[in-house]
């Protein structure tokens, strides 16, 4: 428990330091990411142009597509915020996983958005904006996407590093710097953040999408089997039936029934999660990037149908780990219970993000804990590389290049993309150091992501399926997407409103769709010459 000065007591530090993590596990964790660096160096030999760098030559088969989709979306940040949701929401949180899986499967079956996008042969979503609505919409769309996306990934580095310090028992330790530097010891969390960021930047800059795909494949193998094994061990440790009984005792019906609003969810939240599931697979740029890198539109549909299993499991298993951590803390370790839920009135408990890694640190045996941690670090890296590549590509291709009248050569574009990768990396490190939000990470991410995706959804759906969608409607919809920022607690405090983030998100969707429809009807585009019109609204079936 924290003292008045904000420091943890000696007993608390000792409790948090208990772990099965050994020296061998450290060796595994440090050596494993180097595989990705080597892959980046090898892959860099195959980069000849922007198409190779951004979409791996648009040559991904079904299995590799599923592996890379899973590798990207099953990141350590997902595992951490999902475990937190399972910890706070119990089994009721499973509805989010179910919504994600069902919507992804439906998108796979119908090809909603992704099929037509891939059939157009574009590289990025703003490129679609350009072809459908004009260059101004492309630039504005690129800026909005990068703004929302970079803000969204602001906590990735910190939360990912929290897993590593939590599982290794270093959550409150400091590392000494060389005496010659004359600087005080730095928190282990910050040192881990710097180390991981450096590795990610090196191989993302070197290899682009090809190295990302290869790293994702290796990560898929390690993490898939690691997830299954860890889940089996958690059940073995706590007992299958006992887990359900314990949740019932701790949380009551709200721990299972998501329609009960007292549990933190309710019908409004379920609808919001349904929409997020749809967005997560069909509009979120890192997912769409995989669709655009597929070898054909048919492959995209197949890839998404199968990936629906991954989209479910990426939430389901971490929720379960969070639930197990709750059961373990509440029923198996009185010291941990006191740390996370202090009995003293007004006392602040330990950040619940640490619950799952501490739980795993206690139940997993040496070597296995190293492999699981290495898999998690790989997951962390594969998410970072994809996001860094995605946002930097958007800034290069859809903001800077159009501003220069598309006169930039391929080599300049690749170097510019690498420059943005490093710049975003520096921001993520800085944001991780200064941000001290109190909301669940998942809700923070949903809101920041909504700044981009609410507008993007209106533009994609309108642009692909509604002939009368106009460029003015598109610009208005993109700007209307900014309304999602009112879902953030600091912004709500600033303007003096208090509404659940789910309600603000749903309002924002309605607002952007209204802006798109109203703007298009009131300010329609001038009719294009027939030839040009055919090129921009090409039917996928004819491609």
């Amino acid at each position: 428990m924290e003292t008045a000065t904000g420091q943890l007591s000696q007993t608390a530090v000792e409790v948090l330091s208990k772990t099965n993590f050994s020296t061998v596990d450290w060796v595994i964790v440090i050596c494993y990411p180097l595989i990705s660096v080597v892959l980046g160096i090898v892959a860099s030999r195959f980069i000849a142009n922007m198409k190779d760098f951004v979409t791996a030559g648009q040559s991904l088969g079904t299995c590799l597509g599923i592996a890379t989709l899973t590798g990207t979306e099953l990141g350590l940040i997902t595992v951490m915020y999902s475990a937190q949701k399972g910890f706070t929401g119990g089994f009721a949180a499973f509805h989010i996983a179910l919504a994600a899986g069902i919507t992804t499967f439906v998108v796979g079956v119908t090809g909603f958005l992704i099929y037509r996008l891939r059939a157009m042969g574009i590289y990025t979503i703003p490129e679609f904006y350009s072809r459908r609505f004009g260059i101004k919409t492309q630039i504005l769309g690129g800026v909005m996407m990068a703004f929302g996306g970079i803000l969204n990934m602001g906590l990735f580095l910190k939360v990912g590093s929290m897993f590593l310090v939590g599982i290794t028992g270093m959550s409150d330790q400091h590392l000494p710097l060389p005496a010659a530097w004359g600087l005080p010891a730095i928190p282990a969390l910050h040192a881990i953040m710097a180390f991981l960021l450096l590795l990610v930047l090196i191989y993302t800059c070197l290899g682009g999408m090809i190295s990302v795909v290869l790293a994702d494949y290796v990560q898929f193998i390690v993490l898939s089997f690691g997830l299954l094994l860890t889940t089996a061990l958690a059940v073995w440790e706590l007992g299958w039936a006992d887990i359900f009984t314990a949740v019932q005792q701790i949380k009551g019906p709200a721990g299972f029934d998501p329609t009960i609003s007292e549990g933190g969810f309710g019908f409004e939240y379920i609808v919001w999660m349904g929409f997020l599931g749809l967005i997560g697979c069909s509009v979120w740029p890192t997912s769409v990037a995989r669709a655009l890198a597929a070898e054909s539109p048919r492959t995209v549909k197949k890839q998404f149908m199968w990936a629906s299993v991954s989209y479910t499991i990426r939430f389901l298993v971490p929720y379960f780990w969070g639930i197990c951590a709750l059961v373990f803390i509440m029923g198996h370790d009185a010291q941990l219970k006191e740390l996370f839920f202090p009995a003293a009135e007004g006392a602040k408990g330990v950040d619940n993000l640490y619950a799952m890694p501490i739980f795993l640190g206690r139940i997993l045996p040496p070597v296995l804990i190293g492999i699981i941690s290495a898999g998690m670090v790989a997951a962390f890296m594969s998410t970072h590389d994809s996001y860094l590549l995605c946002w930097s590509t958007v800034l290069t291709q859809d903001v800077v290049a159009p501003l220069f009248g598309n006169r930039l050569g391929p080599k300049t574009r690749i170097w510019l993309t690498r420059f943005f990768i490093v710049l975003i990396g520096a921001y993520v490190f800085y944001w991780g150091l200064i941000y001290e939000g109190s909301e669940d990470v998942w809700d923070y991410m949903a809101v920041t992501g909504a700044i981009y995706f609410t507008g993007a959804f209106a533009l994609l759906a309108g642009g692909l399926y509604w002939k009368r969608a106009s460029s003015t409607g598109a610009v208005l919809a993109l700007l209307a997407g900014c309304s999602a920022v009112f879902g953030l607690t600091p912004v709500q405090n600033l303007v003096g409103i208090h509404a659940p983030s789910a309600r603000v998100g749903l309002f924002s969707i309605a607002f952007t769709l209204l802006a798109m429809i109203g703007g298009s009807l009131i300010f329609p585009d001038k009719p294009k010459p027939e030839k040009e019109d055919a090129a921009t609204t090409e039917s996928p079936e004819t491609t």
Partner: protein
Amino acid sequence: MSLPLEFWIVLWKIVFVGVVCLFGGMAVWVTIGGVFDIKRLFARIAASHEEDKNKAESGKLNPKSEI
């Protein structure tokens, strides 16, 4: 009007076990199939580079203008 607690407990048990088993099977398939996809990926990229090179040599495409 909410459903009985037993319904939710059974539902989440079925969903969890079902999805984990499905994922286990898919993990094996993707691991094996991925090796073949990687081979194909490099073959296609190499062929694409070769094609671009031939086009550039025959004057059909200026590689510097390609994005």
